[in-house]
Structures are given as structure tokens and as C-alpha cells.
């Protein structure tokens, strides 16, 4: 690791005062420290926000307010989440290992970096790690790369399970700006498509902090998270689907689908949700939804397998959610 200063923040104000150009906030550190060891990330200062009391889950009207440093394990085990937002518990439990979930935080999980092997290798060009240097993945060996939302500059897949569920649940992210004011950012729009600036992954500006994630009351009681991966546990998704559905009189009255393993950001397609809404469940409908989802996909050698896999997983999830 490169040398860095370490500051333990006393409060939010202090954390943002301590933040200087080239610094990074740290809470769980499971992703950041890994990348620092490989010198993929080389912050000159770490500002520790792990002891600011942001580790509470509170009732918030008919929803929940989840502090930014609530660990993945505490969130997955929370009785309220298990009962009313089970897709979130399931997504969290499908990710990482017991040890990592005890450290990894809610805010940090939203900022998790891609596992593209070229991003991880400082000896290869990568527009995300070193803007303008090129993309070794293009023409390189591909497997767990994105097929949706890619650009000519980046094929990096958005990792993580929790954000996929949060998209389907219409979560809202609380961000404290550098002026100390808090704003609410819906999950939709929080992550940025790579375009020609793949190094900018979210709408956060330097020094801005995620303080909480707000979950509105669930709009569907039929919730499913299905993750397909290379091994049964402790692996990233090849394809994952989070479904939040409501059925009224045999008709789908609410449909919200999040997708992992496919996109450069945690994916959701409003047209797919709209196609399913006000329809009766059927194999033909589910197949049409998959076709719509994948209409803009850009499969390459090594990632083409994801298209038929996504179609099958989506169909299985929708069958389970509507049975």
C-alpha cells in the first residue's frame, strides 16, 4: 500500500472538513483496502466514518431509513427487512461471505467497484482506473462483463447484489453535500452509465457523503431474488434478478425488476416493468419481457451466454413471483 494519512472523523461536519482532494472515505473498507493493496486506488488520506453513529435502522413513516454504515449482515437480519422487504435480505445474503457481510456497509456497497480483471491490473490500460488510457477488455478475454449500458470506452460490469434489490424497491439515497445540506437521490440516476467518463461511476461529487438509504413502503408483496453464479456461494452474479410484484385478481398490478450481472450500472428498465403491468402472467408475456430487456444488449465473445441465461432466469423468477 502507498502511504496515507488517517483521520478518524468525530462527526459528519468533521468528516467533510477532513476530506481533501485525493482523500477517500472509509467505513467497512473491504473493497477499498483490497484495491489499495493492489495500488488500483491510491488515496493520500483516509477519513474514517465508521464511528459516526450512522449504523442505525429506523422506522421512517411507513418505510425504513437505513444508516450508511449499517453492515450488510445487520441489514439482512433486521426483522422488519425480512418481513416486508425480503428481496433485500435475500440479495444481501446472496452476496460475499459471512466475514465480509459483517464489515461491508450499506453506503459502501453502493460504491463498490467493478471486478473487471483489467481494472484490477495496473499494468493494463483501463479508462476507469486511468482515464484516457484505453480499455484492455475490448479485444481482451471477457466473461463477467456487461452487455447492457456499455460504451466504446468501458465494458465493466456493475458488481453487487444489494443495489439490484434497491432498484426494484425504489430506494432513495440521502447525500450530504459539501455545504452540509442533505439531498435525496433516487436509486434511478445515482449510478452513471460509463459513456466517455467511466471513471465517474455515480453522481457523488468529491467530498459528498452517503448518510442513509431510505426504503419506501414496499409496492409489491411478491418479492424474489434469484442469482446465478459459477459456484453455489461466495461468487459474483453471472445474472441476477430482483422482482417486486403485486397481483390483483390474477393481473399484475405492480412490477419492478432489477438486474445484476448484465449492466454497467444496477439495471432496471421501465419499459419492461410497463410491459408486465396490467397483464395476466403467461409464458409468452415473460418471454416478451426478456426480449424487450435485451433489445439493446451488446453481447461479445465471452459474454454472449448471458443473453439466453438472462431470458431463462427472468422467466423462472416471474413464474415464481406470480404463482
Amino acid at each position: 500500500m502507498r502511504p496515507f494519512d488517517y483521520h478518524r472523523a468525530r462527526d459528519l461536519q468533521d468528516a467533510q472538513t477532513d476530506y481533501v482532494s485525493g482523500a477517500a472515505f472509509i467505513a467497512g473498507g473491504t473493497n477499498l483496502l483490497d484495491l489499495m493493496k493492489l495500488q488500483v486506488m491510491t488515496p493520500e488520506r483516509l477519513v474514517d466514518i465508521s464511528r459516526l453513529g450512522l449504523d442505525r435502522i429506523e422506522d421512517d413513516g411507513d418505510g425504513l431509513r437505513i444508516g450508511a454504515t449499517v453492515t450488510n449482515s445487520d441489514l439482512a437480519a433486521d426483522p422488519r427487512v425480512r418481513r416486508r422487504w425480503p428481496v433485500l435480505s435475500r440479495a444481501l445474503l446472496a452476496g460475499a461471505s459471512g466475514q465480509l457481510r459483517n464489515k461491508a456497509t450499506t453506503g459502501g456497497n453502493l460504491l463498490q467497484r467493478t471486478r473487471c480483471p483489467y481494472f484490477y491490473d495496473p499494468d493494463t490500460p483501463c479508462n476507469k482506473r486511468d482515464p484516457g488510457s484505453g480499455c484492455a477488455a475490448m479485444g481482451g478475454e471477457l466473461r463477467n462483463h456487461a452487455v447492457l449500458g456499455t460504451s466504446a470506452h468501458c465494458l465493466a460490469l456493475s458488481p453487487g447484489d444489494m443495489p439490484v434489490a434497491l432498484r426494484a424497491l425504489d430506494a432513495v439515497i440521502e447525500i450530504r453535500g459539501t455545504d452540509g445540506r442533505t439531498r435525496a437521490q433516487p436509486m434511478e440516476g445515482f449510478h452513471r452509465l460509463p459513456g466517455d467518463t467511466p471513471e465517474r461511476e455515480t453522481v457523488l461529487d468529491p467530498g459528498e457523503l452517503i448518510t442513509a438509504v431510505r426504503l419506501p413502503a414496499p409496492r409489491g408483496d411478491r418479492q424474489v431474488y434469484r442469482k446465478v453464479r459459477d459456484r453455489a456461494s461466495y461468487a459474483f452474479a453471472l445474472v441476477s434478478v430482483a422482482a417486486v410484484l403485486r397481483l390483483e385478481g390474477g393481473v399484475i398490478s405492480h412490477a419492478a425488476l432489477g438486474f445484476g450481472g448484465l449492466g454497467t450500472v444496477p439495471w432496471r428498465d421501465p419499459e419492461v416493468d410497463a410491459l408486465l403491468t396490467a397483464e395476466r402472467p403467461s409464458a409468452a408475456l415473460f418471454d416478451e419481457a426478456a426480449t424487450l430487456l435485451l433489445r439493446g444488449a451488446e453481447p461479445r465473445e465471452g459474454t454472449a451466454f448471458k443473453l439466453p441465461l438472462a431470458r431463462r432466469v427472468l422467466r423462472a423468477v416471474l413464474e415464481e413471483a406470480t404463482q
Partner: protein
Amino acid sequence: MQITLNVNGVSRALDLDTRVTLLDALRHHLRLTGSKKGCDHGQCGACTVLANGRRINACLSLAVMHDGDAITTVEGLHEADGAGLQQAVIDHDGFQCGYCTPGQLCSAIGMLDELAQGWPSHASDGLEGPFTLTQAEIAERMSGNLCRCSCYPGINAAIRDAAKTGTGATEAAE
């Protein structure tokens, strides 16, 4: 930077570079070499210790971030309800080279406590519990600990035994 760690019940003052991981602080500065460095990237689990009772990867944690925390390593496990599990691992041949064993032990104690608290896992049918410690549940809950000698059957059996006889988490075992 000066910090204090409470390691296996003993308060230890340390003066460390900010880059020192909790694992290196234990092994190189406190000479507690029971916790092992396998991958140093959180993938193998050989470095697993308990921090304030919860299992974590000591390699993916900065020592300075644990100032004031209570750390339990394999050296202190017998005082943290681990003796029965340690014996069960011996009885079931739950190791060959033994390199992953300290991490397996600390992880299993942490895992049994999570089970006692009623935490679900990816392998659980429902999220509400109670959860039975089946083979599938153990495999899932212990997936952060790899064994290159592939002694999983022995480790698995030892954990089932230890859970039944009340080491770690009493009530949760079948």
C-alpha cells in the same frame, strides 16, 4: 499512530504505521501467529478473527480502525467457548495441513453465534427461522473459509457436533 487493542482479554498498546492491517498487527507486532495470511485479499478466510464478537477478515481491516476493540484470535478461543469445537475438529480429522484451521475455528464460533441470534442465510428456506444446522446451511455459512486440503466433511461434522454439545451457540442446533 498509537492505538490500543484488547486481544484475547489483554490490553495491548501499539504504535503502528497507518497501513498495517489488523492481521499484520497481530502476527508481526504482537507475535500472535495463529491467525494466518493466505490470500491477503479476503477470499480465503485463513485470517478470520472475532472483532467485538463478530467474525471478520483481519487482512481487509486496518489496525488503526480497531482502536479500543476486543479481538479474539485462535490463541484465545478456548476462553471464548471454543474448546469444544477445537476438540471436535481433532476428533473428526477436520484438517490436514492445518493452515486454514485457525480461521475455520474463529469463523465457526462467529457463525454459531450468528445462528443463535437467528440470522438467516442464503441456504435458508424461509427468512424467519428457526434455522436447522444442516449440511447445506453449514456449507453456505462457512463459504468464506477455504480448505485447500478439502477437509470440508470433517470440518462440517465437527461444527455439527460442537453445535449439538453446546459450544458456541447452544439453542440453535437441531
